[in-house]
């Protein structure tokens, strides 16, 4: 951990609005009270059960949504999700989708084109890159999606659930690439409900339950308390 804070969350709450019919709307609070700091160069694991508000938390960190209560302070500019298959369009070819998705992720068209050959090789799509995406298998699509998303190089990388995607061999390869990136000086937040898989990567862990931070601290300690609560929940 190098010390300086890159993002601070102070008692953050997020509320979604569902609008239906004539001026009718309903509200749903996904986060109530979440607080933690993210430090430069660290890897923070965020754990919690399904529905704990993990995806909302990532959107908040990425600056996609604003909090409704509390405060989020960004001290770096580029914070983004590992956005798999962002903006993919079925009718475009793999190459066109790579360019579109790359531009959406903040790369220039030239940058995407310069990396195209390497990306095609990594995604193992040499024979299919100029075919429309709708002809791809889900494994092929996942390979392209990961490879393009992996090109984005934000100051803070946010990862949702899984490190690797695609079929078995690509899953291994993509997870290895992710581990390498995480192990570097990069600031990373990994959100997961399977904390065991990322335990070795995390410097700290934050446990979120029903939109509230329960504990932030040393990974093994937080994980032990989390597992204990799961056992209790199962018994109850």
């Amino acid at each position, binding site marked *: 951990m190098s010390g300086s804070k890159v993002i601070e969350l102070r008692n953050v709450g997020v509320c979604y609005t569902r*609008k*239906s019919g004539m001026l009718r709307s309903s509200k749903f609070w996904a986060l109530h009270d979440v607080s933690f700091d993210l430090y430069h160069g660290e890897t923070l694991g965020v754990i919690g059960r399904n529905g704990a508000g993990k995806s909302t938390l990532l959107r908040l960190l990425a600056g*996609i949504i604003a909090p409704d209560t509390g405060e989020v302070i960004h001290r770096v500019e580029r914070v*983004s*999700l590992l956005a798999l298959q962002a903006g993919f369009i079925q*009718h475009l070819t793999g190459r066109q989708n790579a360019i579109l998705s790359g531009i*959406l992720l903040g790369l*220039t068209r030239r940058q995407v084109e310069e990396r195209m050959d390497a990306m095609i090789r990594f995604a193992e799509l040499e024979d299919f890159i100029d075919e429309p995406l709708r002809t791809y298998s889900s494994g092929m699509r996942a390979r392209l999606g990961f490879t393009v998303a992996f090109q984005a190089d934000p100051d803070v990388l946010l990862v949702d659930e899984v490190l690797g995607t695609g079929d078995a061999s690509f899953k291994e390869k993509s997870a290895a690439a992710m581990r390498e990136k995480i192990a570097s000086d990069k600031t990373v937040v990994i959100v997961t409900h399977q904390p065991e898989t990322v335990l070795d990567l995390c410097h700290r862990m934050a446990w979120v339950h029903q939109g509230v931070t329960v504990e932030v601290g040393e990974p093994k300690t937080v994980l032990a308390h989390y597992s204990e609560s799961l056992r209790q929940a199962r018994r109850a």
Partner: protein
Amino acid sequence: MRLPGYLGLILYKGLADLNTEASRAYIGFVWWVLEPLLYMGAFYVAFGLGLRGGGPGMLFFLLCGLVPWKWFQSAVSNGSHTIQSNIGLIQQIYLPKYILPGIVLVTTGIKFLIILALLLVLAIGVGHEPALPWLALPVLILAELAFALAAASLAGAVVPLIPDLGLIIDNGLIVMMFLSGIFFSVKKMPHTAQVLIEINPMVAIINGYRDILIDHQWPDWGNMGYVFAVSTVIYAVGYGIMRHFDRVYPKVMIG
């Protein structure tokens, strides 16, 4: 990403959306020509033949109004739903929402240019040879681009916040169509009515096409200035709302 990056994105995404639209139907982009032709044909039957007795002069007069109107209408109509149609994307990555109406203007604008080319061919066909004032066509196109972008941005900014406005906008567009001088010549109306109806910038744009293509005259530059001025004001409001609610839109679900 800075502005040049966003312009590149607007163009690339606009073309990609166009491509998607084309591949949805078997006949693809033929449909872009066929659909407005059918639309214009229906209006011609209803108004050109039915009310006014028809004639080739009447048909061309109508088309000079319908072709630019169709662009404005589809831009505003699609623009009002643009945040909703891109909700998956804007929940996955941060994009300034004000670029979304720009994408709509690219897709609808390219379709418009194809139809406009057909209109120009038709103009020659019915005896309106290209004359010097044709050089002013790019100004008219830019004026409509400005006005349609402004209106689409404002509509796109407010509809996600108050979905019921979507219905009002759709109906408002129908009313506005009848008040844009597509089916009658505004210039033949009494002065007071003319002044009132000319508040609508589409009247100036449609008159501009008729000045150039039918009367072989330069468009009224004062009116063009008016279109750009109104567009700037409307755009500023729409842009302001979009900036203000930039990080609120992804939290709004409609339905």
